[in-house]
């Protein structure tokens, strides 16, 4: 059984009587430890797919299994628990809480997980070490550069040891140099065996991942999958 199994998922919006299919009958599997990018122009449905996979949104039809749990019909409470323990998010705009310092931001998911303050502190410090920001723990997000803020966001995504990490345009708000450093960090995390899903519109960024799924008009237009071709770069 794959870590994520998506079967015939559709997401339909109604906009003034008009039916919009943001996702149209999408099926895919993600194995544990994979490094995948979901690529597509804006409006293609890639973000909708990520939100549904990340339990932030629910599909109109179809089934999704994540780490043994059927999430397409889970209750809001269950979804919150899954987001907390099994999923880590990295966003384009970092989405750190400006009133909390770096350490508190990283600790926040563990607050909702109900960990003791000593455990929270220990794990947050370790996560900050991993992204190389252990000496910025007491800074506020607005005292850090964009790259540093994104590292804090990555530390926050990692801190609950999630089964899968979703990164939504993680380099979209960074200069190319810093963006490369962030991508390096993701590669390093992938080498450590973490499952990472990178969502981007930029084929150059998508090129860092072995497997690439291209979404167009709510459908999977093409896939690059090293397993199917036997070697990297084959197009199905």
């Amino acid at each position: 059984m794959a870590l994520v199994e998506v079967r015939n998922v559709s997401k339909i919006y109604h906009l003034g009587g008009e039916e919009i299919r943001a996702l149209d009958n999408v099926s895919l599997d993600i194995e544990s430890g994979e490094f995948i990018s979901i690529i597509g122009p804006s409006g293609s449905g890639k973000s909708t797919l990520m939100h549904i996979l990340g339990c932030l949104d629910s599909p109109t039809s179809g089934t999704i299994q994540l780490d043994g749990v059927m999430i397409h019909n889970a209750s809001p409470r269950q979804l919150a628990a899954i987001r907390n323990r099994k999923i880590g998010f990295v966003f384009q705009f970092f989405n750190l809480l400006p009133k909390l310092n770096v350490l508190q931001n990283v600790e926040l998911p563990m607050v909702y997980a109900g960990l003791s303050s000593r455990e929270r502190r220990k794990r947050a410090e370790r996560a900050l070490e991993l992204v190389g920001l252990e000496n910025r723990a007491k800074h506020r997000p607005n005292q850090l550069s964009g790259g540093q803020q994104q590292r804090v966001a990555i530390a926050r995504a990692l801190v609950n040891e999630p089964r899968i990490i979703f990164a939504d345009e993680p380099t979209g708000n960074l200069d190319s140099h810093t963006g490369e450093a962030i991508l390096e960090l993701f590669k390093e995390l992938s080498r450590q065996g973490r499952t990472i899903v990178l969502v981007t519109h930029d084929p150059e960024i998508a090129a860092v991942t072995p497997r690439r799924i291209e979404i167009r008009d709510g459908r999977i237009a093409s896939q690059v999958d090293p397993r199917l071709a036997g070697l990297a770069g084959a197009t199905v």
Partner: protein
Amino acid sequence: MNLGTDIWLGFREIWAHKFRSLLTMMGIILGVASLVSMAALVKGMENGLREALIEIGGLERIRVEASEVPAHQLHLADQAVGTTLDDVEALKRNATFAQLIVPELRTRTAFMTRGSRQFSAWLFLGTWPGALEINQHEIAHGRMFNELDDAEARNVCVIGTAVRDALFGSPEEMGREIIPVGETILINQQPMTIIGMFKHYESEDDRRLRERQAEQPKPAQTNAGPARSRGWQVRSPGGWVYYIKNTSVYIPLNTMQTRFKTVTSTNPVPDRRISVINVRIKGIENLEPALQQIRNIMLNTHKGIEDFTFRTQEDWAEQITTAIRNARLSGGIIAAISLLVGGIGIMNIMLASINERIREIGIRKAIGATDASVFVQILIESSVIALIGGVAGLVTAQGFVHLLASVTPTGNAPVVTFSAMAIAFFFSLLTGIVAGLFPAFKAARLEPIRALRLD
């Protein structure tokens, strides 16, 4: 969820918007302050009234007064003997609920003179030494007349300070307090020796006022013309009680009967009737049986003719209760309205606050906050505002009460009670929680995806 963290975050949120939070809290502060100071004012008023009630003998005192013969017994009217010392003796023997029985004989006109000074006493009565106790009197100078004075019908009297002020001059007038013990005055042309003087009776507030005026230099008298009494001046509720006590003149009962109640000098047989029998009963819970018992005994001595009535202070006590309840109610309504306004202010600011924090709520939900934890967070924030407002309100109330006390020195001193403070604080907290419910519900229902998309 971590309650400590949430409370801490609530404080942070308030600190981040100091001025806005202060304005929001204003409603709660004023509500709590007005509730506490209103309760303090009412309590002060209540204390003043109760003080006066105790001064006239409290609820345990019953007055047995003479009355008309009832209509159905009019044919027996010529048999009626009226209230006499025989009744007092009968009550002393048989009224087991009575603790103290003191007869009283009044004379309508008491014209007192000393030299060119004159005075009409409000209360000129002949009584027994026990009147001191039953009427809550205290001798400040000299002594009360005793049983021997009464038995020998000596020409002695005990006066109140207002009588002294009129006949000898008040301390303010003379610059020192005159103690007229041993002096002789004329009461209805009969010489009487003053053997004692009561202490000066006044309410707490009158005492405060007098002390304030004594501190300040006396303003020059602006109104020209002949000297005159400037009329009644009773300030505090129940103040007339003190006035009456200060204008009292007491003499022994036998003196009253032989000197003032003899019909003519050629027929020196005194009228045996007395005006009032004062009875103090053993405990207020015995009021009903005591009244019944006294009635039975007196019906016996009066040959079944009911030419007497009872007067108790129940009505007055009830009036006090009613007045206090009304004052509490109106004060409570005012305070409730300001708390309501405060609550609306909190709700308004919380709604504005969650609108500008939609993104934060979205982030929190994305990293695993449940609806319930967002709900609790917003609720705690509004409660913290109310909590701080409540504490600030309690502090403000102390200042308020001092201000009120200094602005209106003639009123009763406001008394801040712990229960009023506890109630006000509880209601401020309740207001905060109730005002936070709707914003918290709204925040909890935010869909994370919508909240995150908003840029």
